[in-house]
């Protein structure tokens, strides 16, 4: 809200440069211009709200309704769906499989957020130090990884980790001299998630690196120099100067990563098609898919999805509150 109001005002007064003149015009602006301006933010928000209502709002309402219905494949093709109250929810919450999936999703999310944040920050710091040529080189590399569709990336990574023909097994055997012929990377759930983490983190690092790299330009050189003269090492400079300056960016990026990693779907789904045991490797997104589309039980799937939406909203509230605080500063 605040940001759009500010942008509008800037625009009305003819750009940022003229802003200092604004107070002088104050007398003219007073009551006559305030009234039409009052509705501008609302009008500007309207198109976005409409799109959100159609694209996200309506399906969400349908999902919510569906989660209270007995909704199978016959209902998809038009049979009436009877309401069954909280039966779907009771079944989901009483199913140990659901809790296992939830715990797995949270652990996977944590591991991925930590990995992406650490590697992303290191890459950002690296980009801040190297010369222009390498900066461009790293940026291009990151952009390519960022631009690669998740499905394509997973298939390619899947080939590399292939049991029979994978290059990873081949290289490991060549380097270590141990027998990696037909070593399956996906059959053991832990090893499956190691591969999944590599793929997801590989895809997430560019965003983290770029955002933090952009933030690093905000850290005043003088302060860093002064601290260096006072004898602060690299770690101390990062911990005591860089991090506090970028704290808000870190928080926002972490929240976004948590949201993205908690609802991860493509990578896990595609990997399960390549190998592994579905029941031991499903995360929330995939579990909803399997329940709804795989088994044709849309009601139960809907209930799980609503629970996930509530989880996501809770995390998003953190994010929105943090962003609003930013704007106030």
């Amino acid at each position: 809200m605040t940001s759009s109001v500010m942008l509008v005002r800037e625009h009305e007064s003819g750009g940022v440069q003229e802003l200092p003149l604004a107070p002088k015009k104050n007398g003219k602006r007073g009551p006559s211009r305030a009234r039409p301006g009052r509705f501008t933010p609302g009008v500007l928000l309207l198109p976005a709200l409409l799109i959100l209502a159609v694209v996200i709002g309506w399906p969400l309402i349908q999902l919510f309704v569906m989660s209270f219905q007995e909704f199978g494949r016959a209902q998809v093709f038009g049979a009436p769906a009877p309401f069954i109250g909280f039966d779907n929810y009771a079944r989901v919450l009483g199913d140990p499989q659901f809790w296992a999936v939830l715990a797995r999703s949270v652990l996977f999310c944590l591991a991925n957020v930590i990995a992406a944040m650490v590697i992303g920050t290191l890459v950002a710091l690296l980009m801040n130090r190297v010369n222009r040529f390498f900066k461009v080189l790293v940026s291009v590399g990151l952009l390519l990884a960022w631009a690669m569709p998740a499905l394509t990336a997973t298939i390619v990574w899947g080939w590399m980790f292939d049991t029979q023909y994978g290059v990873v097994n081949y290289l490991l055997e060549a380097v270590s001299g141990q027998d990696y012929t037909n070593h399956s990377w996906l059959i053991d759930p832990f090893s499956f998630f190691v591969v999944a983490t590599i793929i997801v983190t590989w895809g997430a690092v560019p965003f983290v690196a770029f955002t933090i790299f952009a933030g690093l330009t905000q850290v005043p050189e003088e302060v860093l120099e002064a601290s260096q003269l006072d004898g602060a090492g690299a770690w101390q400079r990062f911990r005591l100067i860089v991090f506090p300056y970028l704290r808000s960016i870190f928080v926002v990026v972490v929240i976004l990563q948590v949201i993205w990693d908690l609802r991860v779907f493509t990578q896990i789904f595609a990997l399960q098609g390549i190998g592994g045991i579905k029941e031991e490797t499903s995360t929330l997104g995939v579990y909803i898919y399997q329940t709804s589309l795989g088994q044709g039980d849309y009601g139960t799937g809907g209930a799980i999805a609503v629970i996930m939406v509530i989880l996501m909203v809770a995390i998003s509230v953190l994010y929105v509150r943090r962003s609003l605080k930013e704007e106030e500063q």
Partner: protein
Amino acid sequence: MRKTTLAVTALGVTAALALAGCAGGSGSGDSGSGDDTADIRVWLNGTDTPDAAREYLKTTFEADHPGSTLTIEEQSWTGLVDKLTTNLSGSDSPDVVEVGNTQAAAFTSAGAFLPLTDVYDAIGGDDLLPGFVEAGSYDGTLYAAPYYSGARLVFYKKDLLANAGLSVPTTLDEYVSNGIALAEANPGVSGIYFPGQDWYNALPYIWEAGGEIAEQDGDTWTSTFSSPESIEGLKQVQEVMTKASVAAKDGNETDPQVPFCEGVVANLSAPSWLKGSILAPADADAPGCPDQEPNLGVYALPGADGGAAHVFAGGSNIAVAAKSAHPELATDALEIMLSDEYQSILGENGLVPAKLSLADTLGTDEVATAIAEAAANSKLTPASPKWADVEASGALQDFFVSIAQGGDVAALAADLDEKIDGILNS
């Protein structure tokens, strides 16, 4: 200010990404304006339908309906039930779809297909394969016509068998012991190729031991993987998977011609039409190894007491989508696919035609003989509309992957039964 800009940019990027993520599904389905001319979309699965048949379908349809076009969109067998559910219920539905015979019930019972009563006689009537008519019917009405059937055969490398001093097995036990002997004699070679997810190939072991997948009593189904007979069969499956096969323990059954052509497979149990893939030209999109033709042998999987084993009767049904925008044109396309000419092309390529009268198009070579033997003893999965859900749940794949890893058969089977009971009786 800078901070705000950054946050706004980040938000913008997020929104753009989120929107981009949503945009993926909107295809470019241009539904024609008039009913006379249109583009009919036919979904065929995998590479099973030979190119000659596809070409025939397209040219015949377009010659019969000037101005209209026919587009074949190849779908993957993996995840087909999910994909059909979403696409057949949407506004961008394909017009004609192929569906696995064991999956058909999930859609015929849900009203996803148009009834074929009016064209039943035109497409063959009583000449259609009875088992497949049954699979494609619901409440006495035919919704999904038989498309083709296929028997599972064993393809083998003649030289490997001869070098080991073995001959074509006559019983299932001999088949298994041959496989183990071949694997031991040729390190790195699968005596019997058996990737963990390939549950279709595990069924004959259960059936030959006297077990069943599930039994029906009135309206309730009881999964019987943990019956003593089934357990006995499953133990044999485990023996093959662990001692005779070096295939990926969690691999699936797609493209088995690749390892077969590479020379690391001695016996390969696969649908009869795989012969075409094995002998595909070396420069094809999915290359085979045509130079191996003299070395390629084939036989019907032997049963426990000799003769052909009960194998899974794979195959497909074909149907017109209930939401097709051009049902008449779509039905015409389906009629072409069940014409004698089209079905003969299938027969010549090792697929069992949908019509009994065309059985001789398979020829008289050893593949045809093996198909006839295997088809005579083939069996189906349980005739429940919910069976497709069991397949789609992935429970069977998970189960056999665990068996391939050497898990406790009895405990795993009891666990699987519980899961399948839950789905079949939900």
